[in-house]
C-alpha cells in the first residue's frame, strides 16, 4: 500500500508538471505550427523570476509565482516581437523559428548563468509541511503542484473555448488565411499565444524548481518531456496532451520504482518509439490536423 501511494504521489506530481510544461508548447504549435525551442528558457526564467522576486525584491514567498508569471509573460511577448513578428509571413517560417529559438535558448541560458551562476538555489515558493497518507509523507507542495496544474489546464481550456480571443486563436490555428478574412490580426493572435505560453511556462518552472532546485539548464528536461508528450498526443492537441502527461508521469514513476530511477527516461523514449510506429500522427492525433 505504501508503495502504491508513493508511486501515485510521485507519478501525479510528475504528470502535473509535464502537463503544465506541455500546454505552452502545444499551444504555440497548434496556433502557429512552429516549435518554440526557447520554451524551456521561459520555464527557467519563470523559476528564477520567482526566486528574485522573493530574495532580491523582498516580496513574500507566495507572490513569487505571480511575479514569475508576469516576467515570463513579458518575455513571451518579447520573443514574438523580436523574432516571430519578422518571420511568420515567410514560407520557411517553421524551420527558421526552430533555428532562431534554439539560438535564443542558448543565449538566455548563458544570461541566467551570468547573473545567477550555477549554484542550485532553492525555490522560495515551496511549502515544506505535509501530511501522512497510509504511512507516506506527502508534502503540501505536491498538492499545490497538482491543483495548480489542473487549474491552469482548465483556465487555458476555458480561455480557448469560451472567449472571443480564444475563438480567434483556434480559428487562426485551423486556417490562418480565413481568420485574416474575418478581420483577425494574425500577428496579434501570435503575440497573445506567446504571452499565454509564457505565463503557463512560468507556472511549470516555479513548480519544477520547488521540488528540485533552480539551475540555468532546468528548462531542458521538461521541454524534452513536453516534446515527448506532444508527439504521443499528436502535436497541437491540448486535451490529448494533458491525458498523455499524466499517463507518462505515472508510467515514469512506476518504471523508476520497479526498475530504477535512471531507467525512467529511456523507458519514456521507448514508449515514444512504440507509439509512433503504432500511430504515426500521435495516439490521439489525427492526420494533418492542427488544433488547439
Amino acid at each position, binding site marked *: 500500500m505504501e508503495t502504491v501511494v508513493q508511486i501515485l504521489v510521485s507519478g501525479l506530481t510528475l504528470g502535473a508538471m509535464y502537463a503544465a510544461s506541455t500546454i505552452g508548447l502545444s499551444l504555440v504549435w497548434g496556433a502557429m505550427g512552429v516549435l518554440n525551442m526557447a520554451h524551456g528558457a521561459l520555464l527557467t526564467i519563470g523559476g528564477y523570476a520567482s526566486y528574485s522576486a522573493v530574495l532580491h525584491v523582498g516580496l513574500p514567498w507566495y507572490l513569487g509565482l505571480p511575479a514569475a508569471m508576469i516576467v515570463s509573460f513579458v518575455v513571451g511577448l518579447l520573443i514574438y516581437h523580436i523574432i516571430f513578428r519578422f518571420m511568420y509571413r515567410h514560407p520557411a517560417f517553421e524551420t527558421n523559428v526552430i533555428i532562431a529559438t534554439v539560438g535564443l535558448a542558448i543565449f538566455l541560458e548563458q544570461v541566467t548563468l551570468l547573473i545567477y551562476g550555477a549554484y542550485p538555489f532553492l525555490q522560495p515558493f515551496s511549502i515544506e509541511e505535509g501530511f501522512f497518507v497510509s504511512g507516506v509523507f506527502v508534502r503540501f507542495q505536491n498538492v499545490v503542484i497538482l491543483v495548480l496544474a489542473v487549474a491552469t489546464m482548465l483556465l487555458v481550456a476555458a480561455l480557448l473555448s469560451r472567449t472571443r480571443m480564444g*475563438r480567434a486563436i*483556434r480559428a487562426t490555428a*485551423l486556417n490562418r488565411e*480565413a481568420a485574416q478574412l*474575418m478581420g483577425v490580426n494574425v500577428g496579434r493572435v501570435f503575440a497573445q499565444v506567446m504571452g499565454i505560453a509564457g505565463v503557463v511556462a512560468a507556472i511549470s518552472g516555479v513548480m519544477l524548481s520547488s521540488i528540485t532546485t533552480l539551475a540555468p539548464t532546468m528548462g531542458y528536461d521538461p521541454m524534452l518531456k513536453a516534446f515527448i508528450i506532444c508527439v504521443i498526443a499528436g502535436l497541437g492537441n491540448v486535451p490529448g496532451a494533458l491525458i498523455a502527461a499524466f499517463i507518462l508521469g505515472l508510467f515514469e514513476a512506476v518504471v523508476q520504482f520497479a526498475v530504477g530511477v535512471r531507467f525512467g527516461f529511456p523507458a519514456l523514449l521507448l514508449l515514444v518509439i512504440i507509439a509512433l510506429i503504432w500511430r504515426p500522427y500521435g495516439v490521439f492525433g489525427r492526420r494533418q490536423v492542427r488544433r488547439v
Partner: protein
Amino acid sequence: MSTPLLEVDSLDAGYHGQRVLRDISFGVPDGGLITIIGPNGHGKTTLLRAVSGLIHPMAGEIRFEGKALGRSRVDQIVARGIVHIPQGDMIFSEMTVRDNLMMGAYLPVPYRRADANLKEVYALLPRLEEREGQIASTLSGGERRMLAVGRGMMTGGRILLIDEPSLGLAPIAIDTIYGLIQSLKEAGRTLLLVEENASRVADLADRIYLLDHGQFVWQGTASELDQHDEILETYLGA
C-alpha cells in the same frame, strides 16, 4: 453617376513578381451586383485576393468609399467593410457552426451586433440554425457553402466578394446558394461575384465583365451578353 463604392483602377497584380492581372479597371456601385466571369486560371481569384489585401497590387490602385486601400493589412481592410468569401469555403472545420458564425462577428463593431446579425443569418439560412452545435467538417458541401456565406454576412461588411459560389455543388445546392445571393441583392447588399460560368449569374448581375488571360476582354449587361453568343463561345466554349 456617383462614385462607386469599390473602384479598381488600372490594377496589376500577381504572385512572386509574375503578373497575373494587367490593367484591370472597374467599379462596384453601392447596392449593385457586379459579376466577373472567365475560364479558370485566368486571374479571377487573384483579383479578389488583391481587393481583400491578401496580395498587394503591383501597380494601380483600389479605392473603397473613395479612399485608397494602399498596402493595408487584411484585417484592416475587413474592418473597413470589405468581406471576402473565399473559394473552397475555408470554414473552420473543427469548430461548431455557431463558432464559425461568431468568427464572422470577430471585429468589435459586428461583435456588438452579433446577436441581431445571427438572427438575420438564421432567418435566411434556417439549416444553419438546425446545425448550430455541429462541427463544421461534418456538414455537406452545400451547407458548408451556406456557412461560408453566413459567416461573411456576420461581418456586417459593406461589400461581399464571393468567389465561385457554385463551385463543386450539386444542382439543388446551387439553386439554394443563388436563391441566397438573390435575397442578399434584394436586401440591398453590394456584391462582387466571381464565377466560371455566366449561366447562373447573368440575370442577377447589373454588369458582367469577362476576364481572360488577366485582362478584361468584354463587358456589358446580361441582355447584351445574350445578343453575343459568340463571346461565350470564344472564351468559355459554352
